[in-house]
């Protein structure tokens, strides 16, 4: 069986996605961590990677040649994102609103009036994690530039760094909107990290719905399983969603996390638990 791509997602933020993803990747040989939470990438704070390469992520942006443009307005009319406006003297381009779809150049009747230039909206870092097993854990991370909105393009670029020869762990952004969808799409399995509170359960239900629409099988990690109610566990049972790991709250682990120390280093017994988690996922995938 080929190495799996596992997305770690949650719906609700702060339930422990990055913690689970980082500890999982540190427990597995020949693995790769890919941070797809490009608005708030945090895995590097626990994995301390050595970055070897940084690649800019760009999207195409129309550039209007005023000498050729007749101000006909076809581009602004066709743009669904209100990224173009025609004034009396020129066409204004609002870069932050542009999705780089190419409609404007398609509809422009004047040859050469619209050219596309590349606009940088973020970057992808690539490197290695030295505290991983056998010292060969690969690392990639997407980062969205401040005041940019096109998270999905940066996530797609980060995912293109996936090394098919390794187990890939994708750390997803919170929520259930397009950035989370882009991350989970095409993964072999989705681990949903939740906590036993009404917030955790509510957002877990939404996240489960996304994974079902994407056709990605999912299982749950119940974090801080002892400081809430049973509702999340009951929901999983009713929905036949496997709870693959339960992690009790330990103030010591929370403090280790606050010092940037992954659990598998603060409490090495966790390494075997995370290895078992991967085996459980593999087993479930092999039956499908």
């Amino acid at each position, binding site marked *: 069986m080929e190495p799996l791509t596992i997305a770690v997602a949650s719906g609700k933020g702060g*339930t422990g996605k990055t913690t689970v993803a980082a500890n999982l990747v540190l427990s597995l040989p020949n693995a790769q961590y890919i941070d797809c939470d490009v608005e708030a990438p945090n895995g590097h704070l626990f994995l301390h990677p050595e970055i070897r390469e940084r690649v800019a992520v760009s999207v195409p942006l129309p550039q209007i040649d005023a000498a050729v443009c007749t101000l006909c307005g076809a581009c602004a009319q066709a743009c669904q994102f209100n990224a173009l406006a025609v004034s009396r003297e020129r066409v204004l381009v609002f870069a932050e609103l542009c999705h780089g779809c190419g409609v404007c150049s398609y509809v422009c009747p004047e040859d050469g009036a619209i050219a596309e230039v590349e606009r940088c909206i973020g970057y992808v870092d690539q490197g290695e994690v030295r505290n991983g097993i056998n010292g060969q854990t690969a690392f990639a991370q997407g980062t969205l530039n401040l005041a940019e909105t096109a998270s999905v393009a940066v996530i797609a670029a980060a995912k293109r760094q996936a090394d098919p020869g390794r187990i890939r762990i994708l750390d997803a952004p919170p929520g259930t909107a397009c950035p989370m969808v882009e991350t989970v799409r095409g993964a072999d399995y989705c681990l949903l990290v939740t906590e036993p509170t009404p917030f955790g359960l509510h957002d877990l239900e939404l996240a489960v719905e996304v994974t079902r629409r994407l056709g990605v099988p999912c299982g749950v990690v119940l974090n801080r399983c002892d400081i809430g109610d049973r509702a999340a566990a009951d929901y999983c049972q009713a929905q036949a969603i496997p709870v693959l790991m339960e992690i009790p709250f330990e103030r010591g682990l929370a403090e280790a996390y606050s010092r940037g120390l992954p659990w598998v280093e603060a409490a090495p017994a966790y390494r075997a638990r995370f290895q078992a988690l991967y085996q459980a996922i593999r087993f479930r995938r092999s039956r499908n």
Partner: protein
Amino acid sequence: MKELTIVSGKGGTGKTTVSAAFASLARRKVLADCDVDAANLYLLLNPTLRRQEDFYAMRTPRIDSALCGQCGNCQSWCRFDAIGLDFHAGYVIDPLACEHCGLCALACPDMAISMEDHICGQWLVSDTPCGTLVHARLGVGEDNSGKLVTRVRREAKRLADEQGAGLILNDGPPGIGCPVTAAIAGVDLVLAITEPTPSGIHDLQRVAGLCGHFSIPLAVCINKHDINAENSASIRAWCDASGIEVAGEIPFDPAVNRALVARRSVVDCDCGAVSTAVTRLWESIRARLDLD
């Protein structure tokens, strides 16, 4: 009228916990949950739904297979890999990949693709014991979350004007992307809730950068400050050096979780030092916004 948005960068630092407490403490306010893809504030506020409206944002393409001549233009023009070729169904659109730009419809020589209205969520108005709440439900896997946030804020503004409210309290989304930008644009103050962990600090700095970019005043609250005293001190030092007010600090206490499970805000049940700290935080924000 003043408008306050509570954000965090990193998720799960306590935005909604603080928002629910402020909802209980503030007078003459309208509440808006701007976290439209994981809306949680209503879970603590015992709401009665008063109004529900469908939200249409961008139109979505539909291929009429009877008209489609299978030329493949749509697929080759689409920059988002949203059109696939199915052996039985012909060309099909993947709604989760589509960005709704409409290029496929323009590029189709057979006029087989039409752009159709599409409901991507609902916005809702509810009555709660703490006042009117405007909230929303984004459809699963939908984009347009920024536009829905803007719609929620517009309705909250309208209701606040109607009620003569002194404050609009927005519970914001995590991150720094399009829904966050939509939730903080033009507000009087952003309160960022952080925690003394490497992620909390890192994401606070990203949020501060975003507020700086849009010139929006920012105050900070350190939640669970006693989990790591050293990190809390460095957050305070960083805020001082950046000219950002630390408006409050909240200790860690499992009682907060018990309050959430009981669906109560931390100032409506006994959460000991947490209740006191959140009340003091509110007093400091109230003074800064010059509210009654």
